[in-house]
């Protein structure tokens, strides 16, 4: 039986793979589709299904998801299953490195991007919200927003350029904050180090 598996939101998969390598956790990483976020009710059953699939193969399973709009139902499921989740309501809070609430207080109309969202902006935002088909919907969604804050994991000029394009698509000014993995790394480390079951 292997030691540990991470079941991760697809939007965090790249970063979790990088952290897994950096800290030599030797975990297997299983992703779930990002589009589940469009219907958060589907997240807990999808996580449950994945847990059921791999439970017999691993001593420990860690869920790398925020609450992500499941209104606590993901945590209730994990409590029943005896499986731990990395702390945090959503990936923006994790990446913002403690500044999420301040940013929202400063400007409630803040739209966040991460490396993942910058890379899939056209698919998730423009197509996902139907703006590509009906450009007039952009203002229905975004007229109350005042800025885009890009919480950048990597320092990559091409991603920064694409973030600028994304902000221009929304007609909003862009702020770039180089946050790296933010609180995600520390929380995962703590989860693994503090738990006798998970200590590697």
């Amino acid at each position, binding site marked *: 039986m292997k030691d540990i598996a991470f079941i991760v939101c697809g939007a965090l998969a790249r970063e979790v793979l990088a952290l897994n390598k950096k800290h030599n956790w030797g975990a297997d990483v299983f992703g779930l589709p990002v589009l589940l976020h469009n219907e958060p009710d589907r997240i807990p059953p999808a996580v449950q299904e994945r847990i059921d699939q791999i439970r017999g193969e691993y001593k420990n399973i860690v869920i790398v998801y925020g609450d992500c709009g499941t*209104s606590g139902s993901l945590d209730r499921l994990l409590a029943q299953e005896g499986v731990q989740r990395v702390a945090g309501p959503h990936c923006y809070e994790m990446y913002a490195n403690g500044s999420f609430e301040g940013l929202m207080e400063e400007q409630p109309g803040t739209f966040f991007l991460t490396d993942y969202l910058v890379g899939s902006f056209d698919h998730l935002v423009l197509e996902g919200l139907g703006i590509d088909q009906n450009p007039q919907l952009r203002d229905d969604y975004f007229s*109350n927003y005042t800025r885009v804050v890009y919480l950048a994991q990597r320092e990559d000029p091409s991603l920064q350029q694409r973030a600028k394009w994304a902000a221009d698509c929304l007609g909003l000014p862009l702020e770039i904050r180089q946050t790296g993995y933010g609180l995600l790394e520390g929380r995962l480390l703590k989860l693994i180090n503090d738990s006798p079951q998970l200590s590697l």
Partner: protein
Amino acid sequence: MSEEIDITKLETPELLELIQDDLYDGLADEVVASVNELLARDMTPSDVLNKGLVAGMEIVGFDFRDGILFVPEVLMAAKAMKAGMEILRPLLIETGATQIGTLVIGTVKGDIHDIGKNLVSMMMEGAGFNVINLGINTDVDAFLEAIEEHKPDILGMSAMLTTTMTYMAVVIEALEEKGIRDQLLVLVGGAPLNDAFAEEIRADAYCRDAAVGVETAKKLLAIRRGQPG
């Protein structure tokens, strides 16, 4: 395609069906043309609203709930309904159409999301409510002022974020402190909410979408007024 149809040649029931189809497809210009045609046939603004726009939006609401339609399609339908409402609203006021109650509604402080709240506003207006929409980022003072001024039957609050939904409790506590909580129904909605949260903050009901909001408002108001359901 409805632009190929000569609507003047359609029977009124067919035209009402066409309005519903065009609303479903988010075709605002076509909806406006049919509304004008029905009014030209001396149908009352109230009937055009209820038998055309509201009936059409109800189908949109059901199909959204059943996962057949998604947010973009609902928004396009709402835009088409709004276009029709622009024509009907002054006529409804002019003809003194009966209003079944007053709703004050807003997105709570710290939150700028208003798509759902605006949809609820429009559906409630369509259902015969006088709607006072306070917009986004509404603080407790703004809610209290509006309640004082408009004496609503219902207060509606919306929030899209887990960080802002708790502000609803602040507003309800303020209503309790002022001794006016029992004078109105409090309905709450928004993506992160559920029935348990509504109960916890002592709201009267959680409404998962606009159609449920209208149904709940009508039902609870009728109960409060001692009318049969």
